[in-house]
């Protein structure tokens, strides 16, 4: 058995490779189905491998030529297995989803290259999670980034190319930072693996550690989409095909989180209070900023991308609180906050990939990503809208679903540590508590807007009126599984917690206890369901259900049509008004007179569009400054040879003076 389990991991990686290769086989759909099938098998094997490691923590699967200095050793330990499980699960479901989904997109996407790139993308992520040395880690990291870059470009439209280039620049800035961090830490031992790095880090001087921490934070932060470095995320994720953006948003952000935690937990010595406050600050900033833009965004997939930024912000806040507690010596809070972060990350991976897969179906049905053109889809796709509704409720972290219990653990752990001795810790915890609560409220607003404007009421455009491409069985099945998992993860949170090695929180098989507070997720769910069922029974007893009549909505007597409904902009108008200092919107009012001579009768058109302050006051001025500097430097190329010789002469003098 151990021999077989040994190669389980190797087999899973191999099958991903095979799926990539056979995707290049030919243009016909047979190769497309075959490659996705192989991806399915690799997903299943990956899940088995990670379950094997999780259930028996002391066994560690590894493969590769252990002895050779050059070839890195790949190893799956319990910490990596959690993320490997996520990767395999979501790649399994997105492959299942892709078989019918891509069949209807044959003309926009070049199927061969797309499938091959998906396989390399998944392989890259699997390598990252499995690798034990910086070289292998960076190898996997680069394959992941490059494959996802090409995937974003796959539909070859102008804005996705622009988004992909921005994405490429940001990820490779991050990857460069990571590489420097690893090399700086390794102090010359290029091929040291993580244990040796940890040993080196233990004795490294403080300035190296802080510089490395800054580099790792920038590297992993820009990949995960923390606020100042997040500008690429709302552009790149929506541009990719939906099952790819599900993989990118659901899993790639978690791989960045995995890398960050791998470095902080296993390599660097415990970081100080200032570093953890640094993580906490950025986490809160991206949570608040992400959710605000998720609320006022009009584009379907961009709303999901911003809500990914918000959830990542939440996870980094939990990490910040955990490491801050560790630096202040509150061991209990450190444990629970870390477990809450990982549990919330798992829940986010599941419901966010589900949402992105569902968004693919909606966008295909309405042929546009604009919320203002959707509406009334629930009537045409009832079953799909129920699944989508469950996912939206999970994304809003409402009670019976998994993210609520992640936040519950986090809130309870903070609550129990409010009364710690020094005031500074209390103030930090209270402010975090307040901001997270505000973010929670606004997250609900964003998800309600997403579901209500796209699904309910009258269709707002011709395309939404009669939907031709209804979701097919394969697609609906994978989205339904993810919705079921989001609910199941909530109900059986205690078992999941004990699975990922957080049994300290699980007092009895159905209860989570943090300090003195206990909660039974399944009890709450059955109670809620019971009450609703009782109401259903009472209603049937007290009133005649048949006594019903269909008539058009109450319209104050004048006929109304779909254009009078509330749109996404109108729905989020109060929030845009209340937060107008943060959310810059550019309003333009154009009045054209109908009759040239008569100035009073004019047709006025008002356009409101959203400005991203990070882009307007951050990256665009930075870009302009860099271009101006480049202009100055360009003057040096005056085309006059003698000027170049002068420069050579000066450098010669300088070097001689300095070196000799």
């Amino acid at each position: 058995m151990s021999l077989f389990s040994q190669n389980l991991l190797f087999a899973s990686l191999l099958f991903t490779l095979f799926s990539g290769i056979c995707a290049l086989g030919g243009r016909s759909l047979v190769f497309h189905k075959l490659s996705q099938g192989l991806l399915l098998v690799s997903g299943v094997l990956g899940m088995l491998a990670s379950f094997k490691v999780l259930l028996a923590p002391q066994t560690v699967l590894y493969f590769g030529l252990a002895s050779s200095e050059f070839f890195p050793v790949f190893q799956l330990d319990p910490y990596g297995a959690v993320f490997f499980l996520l990767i395999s699960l979501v790649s399994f479901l997105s492959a299942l989803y892709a078989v019918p989904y891509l069949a209807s997109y044959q003309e926009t996407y070049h199927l061969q290259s797309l499938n091959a790139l998906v396989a390399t993308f998944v392989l890259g992520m699997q390598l990252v999670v499995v690798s034990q040395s910086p070289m292998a880690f960076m190898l996997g990291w680069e394959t992941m980034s490059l494959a996802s870059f090409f995937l974003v470009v796959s539909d070859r439209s102008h804005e996705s190319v622009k988004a992909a280039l921005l994405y490429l620049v940001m990820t490779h800035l991050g990857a460069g930072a990571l590489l420097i961090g690893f090399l700086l830490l390794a102090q010359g031992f290029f091929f040291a693996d993580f244990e040796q790095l940890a040993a080196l880090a233990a004795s490294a001087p403080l300035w190296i550690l802080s510089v490395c921490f800054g580099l790792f934070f920038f590297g992993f932060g820009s990949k995960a989409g923390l606020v100042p470095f997040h500008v690429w995320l709302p552009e790149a994720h929506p541009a990719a095909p939906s099952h790819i953006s599900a993989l990118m948003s659901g899993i790639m952000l978690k791989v960045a989180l995995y890398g960050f935690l791998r470095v902080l937990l296993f390599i660097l010595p415990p970081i100080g209070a200032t570093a953890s406050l640094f993580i906490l600050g950025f986490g809160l900033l991206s949570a608040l900023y992400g959710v605000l833009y998720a609320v006022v965004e009009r584009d379907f997939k961009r709303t999901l991308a911003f809500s990914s930024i918000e959830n990542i912000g939440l996870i980094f806040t939990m990490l910040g609180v955990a490491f801050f507690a560790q630096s202040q010596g509150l061991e209990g809070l450190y444990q629970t906050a870390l477990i809450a972060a990982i549990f919330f990350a798992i829940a986010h991976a599941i419901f966010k990939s589900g949402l992105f897969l569902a968004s693919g179906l909606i966008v295909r049905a309405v042929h546009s990503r604009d919320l203002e053109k959707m509406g009334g889809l629930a009537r045409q796709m009832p079953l799909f809208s129920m699944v989508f509704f469950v996912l939206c409720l999970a994304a809003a972290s409402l009670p019976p679903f998994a993210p609520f219990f992640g936040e519950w653990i986090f809130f309870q752990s903070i609550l129990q540590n409010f009364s710690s001795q020094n005031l500074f810790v209390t103030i930090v915890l209270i402010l975090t508590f307040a901001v997270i609560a505000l973010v929670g409220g606004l997250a609900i607003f964003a998800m309600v807007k997403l579901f209500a404007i796209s699904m309910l009421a009258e269709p707002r455009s011709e395309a939404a009126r009669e939907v031709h491409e209804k979701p097919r069985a394969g697609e609906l099945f994978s989205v339904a599984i993810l919705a079921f998992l989001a609910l199941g993860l909530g109900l059986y949170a205690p078992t999941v917690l004990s699975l990922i090695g957080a049994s300290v929180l699980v007092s009895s098989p159905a209860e989570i206890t943090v300090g003195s507070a206990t909660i039974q997720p399944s009890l709450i769910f059955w109670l809620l369901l019971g009450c609703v069922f009782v109401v259903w029974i009472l209603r049937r007893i007290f009133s005649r259900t048949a006594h019903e009549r269909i008539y058009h909505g109450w319209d104050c007597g004048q006929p109304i049509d779909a254009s009078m409904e509330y749109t996404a902009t109108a729905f989020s108008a109060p929030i845009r008004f209340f937060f107008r200092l943060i959310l810059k919107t550019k309003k333009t009012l154009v009045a054209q007179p109908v009759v040239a001579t008569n100035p009073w009768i004019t047709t006025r058109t008002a356009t409101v569009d959203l400005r991203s302050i990070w882009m307007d006051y951050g990256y665009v001025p930075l870009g302009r400054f860099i271009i101006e500097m480049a202009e100055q430097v360009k003057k040096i190329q005056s085309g006059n040879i003698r000027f170049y010789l002068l420069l050579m002469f000066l450098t010669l003098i300088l070097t001689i003076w300095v070196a000799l």
Partner: protein
Amino acid sequence: MTNSLFSLLMLVLFVGETLTCFTLMRLPSLLRFYALSSVALGGLAIGLALEGGGVHLIPVAVAVVAVKALLVPFVIKRMAERSGASLRLVSSLRPSASWFVGIGVFGSGISLALHSPLYQMNNMIQTPALLPISFGVILVGLVMMIIRKDLLSQMIGFLVLENGIGAFSLSALGGIPVAIEFGVYSAVLIGAILMATLSQRVQNLLGTHDTSHLSELTD
């Protein structure tokens, strides 16, 4: 120190001619003085050889005179005449000002070399006195290329620079082994031929050797 009178004379000649090259405005005289400075360099090599610097310096000196004193000026003069270039060279400094600049640069080169750690290790160098002087000549060559506007004199500047390097190698290592020396000289010869043909092409294309017109290409 070079005690023999002959090598000292050669050294003074070498420096004097290089400085005059720096200031000359007509091509034939520039070439003539460059040839003379190469001959002086060859004589210097022979002087060192006589002082027991190793017999291999003799063929080196002969090669220097052959290539630098005869062949290269001949090639450049012929090329200039064939392309019909005006023998009047163009410089951004008037001759009198260029004297001051030349001496200034030569002096700073010497002082720079004197302060450099290389000079302090004089136990290793055969003729320590020659080192700063050769370094000065290198700087004069480089500045000549910068000051002069037309292509031909920039070529001569480069060749003077190369002379300086040859002198530097003489002083620091007591002469480079013959094979390498010949390699260097063949490179210099080919370089000179290349530069000459290039300047002829430029002459045909733009009608002048003045490098400031070259910049029109970039706009």
